[in-house]
């Protein structure tokens, strides 16, 4: 069996975000988060719910990449109109996404960068469902390139998803649904368990130091007392990952597809 890659290590780390979540919809957007959600369902948390990437609920995670269209076996139905009714606004979902920017409050941006809202320097997607997701259900994040462009100094250019910024807490509003869980990157795993929900490094990938992570981050990080080394997936885990991603799409996610133990470069 070949050595695990860094992308595969990230998949395992990301799957831990869904551990014990219960009967909620686990949504992973992008190859690593989607494979991670599938891995979680096939291993430690079988009660997770999941879609086929479109609108059917499936009990067998759908592999990514080309295959016969009818391979999907629907067990339930969750079209867009029911997604808000049944999953988002009832808090029965945990999404792992990759926004363009994230700041020290966990505020995320997917809308535009630079310039003004009237005339952005770079127009991106728009806020999509981030405002609703962030105020209703748990969210986690995956970033293939840990850098100051992603983890920005100051605040994100446009707050598309709510975080823990006290200045954005409107009096009388109910912010109890804001629940930011994990951030998995090519360097480490972080959570929001620091003082006043500060971002905190909870595990470092093999060969990575805290200083390296801090240098690639635009704001000050905390370090967990019991910081660990991120586990490298074993042969059994790698085999499951391979069934979820038979075309090895994951090999394209992190530049040069380094091995799990080579993150330090």
């Amino acid at each position, binding site marked *: 069996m070949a050595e695990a890659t860094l992308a595969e290590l990230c998949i395992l780390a990301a799957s831990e975000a869904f551990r014990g979540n219960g009967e909620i919809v686990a949504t992973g957007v992008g190859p690593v988060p989607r494979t991670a959600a599938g891995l979680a369902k096939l291993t430690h948390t079988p009660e997770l719910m999941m879609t086929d990437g479109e609108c059917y609920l499936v009990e067998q995670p759908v592999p990514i990449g080309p295959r016969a269209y009818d391979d999907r076996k629907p067990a339930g139905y969750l079209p867009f109109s029911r997604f808000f009714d049944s999953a988002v606004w009832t808090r029965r979902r945990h999404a792992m996404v990759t926004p363009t920017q994230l700041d020290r409050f966990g505020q995320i941006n997917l809308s535009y960068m630079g310039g003004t809202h009237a005339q952005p320097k770079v127009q991106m997607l728009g806020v999509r469902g981030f405002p609703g997701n962030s105020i209703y259900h748990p969210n986690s994040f995956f970033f293939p390139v840990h850098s100051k462009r992603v983890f920005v100094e100051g605040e994100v250019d446009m707050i598309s998803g709510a975080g823990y910024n006290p200045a954005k807490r*409107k009096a009388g509003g109910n912010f109890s649904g804001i629940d930011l869980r994990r951030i998995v990157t090519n360097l480490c795993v972080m959570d929001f368990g620091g003082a006043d929900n500060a971002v905190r490094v909870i595990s470092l990938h093999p060969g990575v130091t805290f200083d390296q992570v801090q240098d690639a981050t635009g704001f000050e990080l905390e370090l967990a007392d019991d910081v660990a080394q991120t586990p490298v997936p074993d042969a059994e885990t790698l085999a499951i990952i391979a069934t979820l991603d038979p075309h090895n799409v994951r090999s394209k996610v992190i530049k040069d597809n380094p091995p799990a133990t080579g993150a330090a470069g």
Partner: protein
Amino acid sequence: MLDKRMTAADIVGQIESGMTIGIGGWGPRRKPMALVRELLRSDVTDLTVVAYGGADVGMLCAAGKVKKVIFAFVSLDAIPLEPWFRKAREAGGIDVLEMDEGMFQWGLKAAAFDLPFLPTRVGLGTDLAELGGFKTITSPYADGETLIAMPAIPLDIALIHVNRSDWRGNVQVFGPDVYYDEWFAKAAKRAFVSCEELVDRIEDHYPDDAQSNLFERCFVTGVVEVPGGAHPTSMPPHYGWDMAALKQYAAAAREPGDWTSVADQFVDESEDAYMKRNGGWEAVAKLPLPIF
């Protein structure tokens, strides 16, 4: 009128400059593109376009038809950033009202029920409220919660593409997901549908598909048959999106980057000419359904 058959030109003839039009579908899916193309051929301008946006929004922006876009995203999915919308935004000059996808349907529902707003928690803690001028309201009950009052998004006209209709506007909509098309229909003063197939009396031909009647015919003002009318977007189960055409469309935003020089390619002088340019209906019918 119970006989609601019209031509695409008749439908677009009802759209006036300055109107607010809603366009059904989602990103590169189930877009009433034949009606959008007809709109692009018209001299209508200053539109407020309300959509879960894809190439419909991009083309209308590129052609200078748009004053304002009400949106949560504009994307071609496999091509995440809609290149012509992006170009128009980065040039400035297009007003926007940006909101969350869920707030968006809330606004359509408020309009459908003739309510001024519907309350929501969504948007709190983000920049949406300030940028969009959304006001808050205090719950009048014991909880006293501060909520955003999501304003209704009333539409003058809605354009929707369906799989099948009869001449009275009884529609049947297939495909795994039908998005928010029904709320576009109900939020509009007048909704017009294009269909892949027009039949005489739907109850005589397809009574077994009655559950696919997504919205009632009282919400349909006019109907036109346009096979391939969603191209280059997807229309399951008839055909998938035309990724080659969408890539070409995206590439044109870069080189030469001037809509007038490529408009023919994506609009042409008539729907027949457009279809011919894209290989004809037979080619469109063969486009494979996307796999997710």
